[in-house]
């Protein structure tokens, strides 16, 4: 039997695959935005001296990182709806699942990034009369953010790959489309390869963008 990689099946269905890819990127991007936004107050609460903030934040981070993404997806999409708690579209449930899972990781990334800013920066800011909040906003956060970009990028890639799980709740993402075409055309190898190549391409573009962002924010700081 001669093995042949049939590129025509990919080009024939390229527009569906790209539509699917767009949806995957959209859901991952929204999920990442949720993770990045939730992670920040979580990290701050986790560093707080007050147990009232620290304990819930630590619990959240543990849960977010510990519960498998697939279970979060099922819980938010099926379980909650069945119990009549709330009902979400597949897209929203997907983005939320990615966001909740990612928030635990982002929180840890921010926390490490804050610790990486030398304590002298805090003292220098306090000495010119900046309040704690001003010190955080104007001195600590801008310096921590650029430390957080490369590992934050990893979380985005993780969420992008995690987004392929969303086909299980019927989100017509890239993997869902690839599976559908693969079954119809009996060409699984071609289609799953195409799907993998597409994800890698997006990952590379994202890494490039993160590199640019990091350089732009690293003004004045040798790395």
């Amino acid at each position: 039997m001669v093995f042949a990689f049939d590129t025509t099946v990919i080009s024939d269905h390229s527009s569906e695959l790209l539509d699917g890819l767009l949806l995957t990127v959209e859901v991952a991007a929204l999920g990442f935005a949720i993770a990045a936004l939730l992670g920040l107050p979580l990290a701050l609460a986790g560093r707080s001296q007050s147990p009232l903030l620290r304990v819930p934040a630590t619990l959240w981070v543990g849960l977010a990182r510990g519960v498998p993404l697939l279970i979060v997806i099922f819980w938010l999409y099926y379980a909650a709806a069945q119990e009549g708690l709330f009902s979400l579209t597949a897209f929203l449930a997907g983005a939320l699942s990615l966001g909740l899972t990612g928030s635990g990781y982002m929180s840890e990334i921010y926390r490490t990034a804050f610790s990486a800013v030398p304590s002298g920066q805090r003292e220098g800011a306090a000495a010119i009369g900046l309040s704690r909040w001003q010190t955080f906003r104007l001195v600590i956060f801008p310096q921590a953010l650029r430390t957080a970009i490369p590992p934050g990028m990893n979380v985005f890639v993780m969420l992008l790959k995690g987004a392929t799980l969303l086909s299980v709740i019927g989100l017509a993402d890239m993997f869902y489309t690839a599976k559908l075409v693969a079954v119809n055309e009996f060409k699984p190898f071609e289609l799953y390869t195409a799907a993998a190549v597409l994800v890698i391409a997006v990952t590379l573009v994202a890494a490039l963008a993160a590199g640019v962002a990091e350089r732009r924010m690293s003004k004045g700081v040798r790395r």
Partner: protein
Amino acid sequence: MSASTSSLLELRQVTKQFGETTVLHPTDLQVERGEVVCVIGPSGSGKSTLLRCVNFIAPPTTGTIVFDGEEYRPPKDHRWIPALGIPEEQRLTRLRTQVGMVFQQFNVFPHLTVRENVALGLRKTCGLGKKAADARAVEELGKVGMAEKAAAYPEQLSGGQKQRVAIARALALEPKLMLFDEATSALDPELVGGVLQIMRDLAAGGMTMMVVTHEMRFAMDVADRVIFMDRGGIVEQGTPEQFKSPQHERTRAFLKSINHG
């Protein structure tokens, strides 16, 4: 408040503990307006801690600090609800705008230009607009010979230049008291002189200063009063003249060790 008749700064029974370790034993100290006080002593003697207690960068554990007629006490522990500490915090930020501090490690902000470093305090604590703050910042930088570097980032500067920026940043807020915490200890030897000259000029201009230093020549030339600290307490204080023949054995031993070190 008839603040101008009394000392600018008074420390009453100020102590500092880190956990079980006492780094500053009960200390009383008064600093008069226009006075230059140099604090010397071996490392770990509590000199820096004393300085840091003054502007609450390291809040004292017990005791009272009176600055320009206002009393400041150790902040209460609002561990459970930190927001309750905000009014106290606001009072302390007002104290800190009146007390400039220069650090051994400069602590300039690397993500801001030299001008922005100086303008930040002017904008955020003095309420100046961006334009006014920038203009004032360049003016202050001019006084320490750094105006032409206004657009540079700190990493492009030498240690001495960074320290000048840090001094300009503190002076821009027109403080009533300047604290120098080993301001020249991290500098290459050839850069020390320039920074010390700025400090000499400042002292000559009537600025009230507390200077923790290892530069004995500077202390002897500039100080109105020298304080020797050891093991978390003031051992001896007096004029530079009096320090030429110290009373305490520990002071003599320290002075001998740095002169022959």
